[in-house]
């Protein structure tokens, strides 16, 4: 696999081009923003029964956000917190990424210099969940 195809695997590009729940659902009251001022990536996450997102960003952050939304579906807040932490740790080199859905990010070395893109929405979501009144 070439360096190029390690980072931009077909599945990632497909995900980025056909992001899941990519819709500006202003009807949903609760929303948070995932924003990286260094590159301008900016997604609004609409947090209703289901999660939707909309905004602007690179292929990697877009695919990662899309996969996160799929991945969190049906999880309780507690489960979500746990598994987001685990994923972020995995990207930072502190553990394995084993979940089927997230396997494209299994090898963070292939994404050197782009870890922030992968983690963008995950960090925003985690911050939101941790600040919820329990």
């Amino acid at each position, binding site marked *: 696999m070439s360096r190029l195809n390690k980072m931009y695997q077909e599945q990632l590009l497909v995900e980025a081009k056909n992001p899941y729940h990519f819709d500006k659902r202003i009807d949903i009251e609760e929303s948070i923003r995932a924003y990286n001022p260094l590159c301008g990536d900016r997604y609004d996450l609409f947090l209703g029964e289901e999660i939707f997102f909309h905004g602007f*960003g690179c292929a990697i952050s877009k695919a990662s956000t899309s996969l996160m939304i799929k991945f969190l579906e049906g999880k309780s807040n507690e489960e979500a917190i746990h598994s987001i932490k685990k994923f972020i740790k995995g990207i930072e080199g502190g553990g394995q990424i084993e979940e089927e859905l997230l396997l494209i990010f299994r090898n963070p070395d292939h994404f050197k*210099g*782009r870890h922030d893109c992968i983690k963008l929405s995950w960090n925003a979501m985690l911050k939101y969940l941790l600040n919820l009144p329990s």
Partner: protein
Amino acid sequence: MFAIKNNFPIFKAHPDLIFTDNASTTQKPAAVIEAISQYYREMNANVHRAVYDLGNQSDQIYRDTRQEICEFYQKETCIFTHGTTDGFNKLAMSLENQIDSRSNIIVTEMEHHSNLVPWQELCQRTGAELRLVGMTDEGTLDYEQMEKLMDDSTRIVSMVHISNTLGTINDLKRVRKIIGNRNAWFLVDAAQSCAIHIDLIQNSDADAYIFGGHKMFGPTGVGILLAKKKLLNELPPFHFGGGMVTEVETLKSEYKEDVTRFEAGTPPIAQIAGLKEAVRFISEVDLGQCRQNVSRLAKTLRARLEAEGFDCLGKGQDTAGIVSVTFGDIHPHDAASFLNTKNIAVRAGHHCTQLIMKKYGIQACVRFSFSIYNRDQEVDSIMHAIKEMKSFFS
């Protein structure tokens, strides 16, 4: 040009590397790297009136480099800092005693954050007003607006010489004329001109020029503040400690009168030894030809990018070897990652010039910045890669 590239070991380590991130940092000639090593291997000692041989040598390098730099850029005095950012922050702190709530400070929309945020903070501390000179869509400074913004309360005009995002070469002589004999300090961010646009520094008449070693084929961790004596005479020291005091009492101290009062502590002496060699290196190349070279490369690349339908920032009239571009749907960071797989090093982001990004309504762009070792065929390689990229992401 071949001969020049051979001076840079990085291209032996990475023969296929196309390094077009020179506005961010430049590569180092072997002589600079060796001067630093040699300093540590053979001379290493602290300065400040050392009496033994090694210390004398260090003292001499410290003094000689200062003098050579002044002669090279044809300025009155020179202070060593730790970089462009360090220089502006120290100046902004030190100039605080000349600024109050009636003053205004003029900067431009093209500033690098390091020549913007320190003044924002100074204005917040003092109540002074920060005034921003805009630019045209072409990426040219609005000199007429500058003229209007300037008045008798203007105390500082601090501006970038060459924009690190647009490549625009600002006209320092014109600004000097606009300032006229107002009681305002004229400060220049020379980070992008210190390496090969020496002539423009030599021929202009600002009160200070601020830049850093790593932008001029020299080491990181050292910077330069070229200044007129009259500016320095009015400034209190930046930092306090060893080497800048005369008499230290329990509750207060007296400071030296000469420029070393601005250089508290152990100076970055090994880096100064490297800087000395960097200046020598620059003085030995044909800078006129280098400037033509980077300008031609940038113009060619810009034309070919535009021919492919991509948007380049500004018009690139005075290009100093820099072209910034957006690739439509392809995000700048994806583009940079793609180009990296083709051994092309470029920077994506806002390049520490968020005001320029806002001006053009974008968040980020890809910047190609050339230096003296870049070659025409690299533009071919870049364009080839970009075409591939276009189809890859489509």
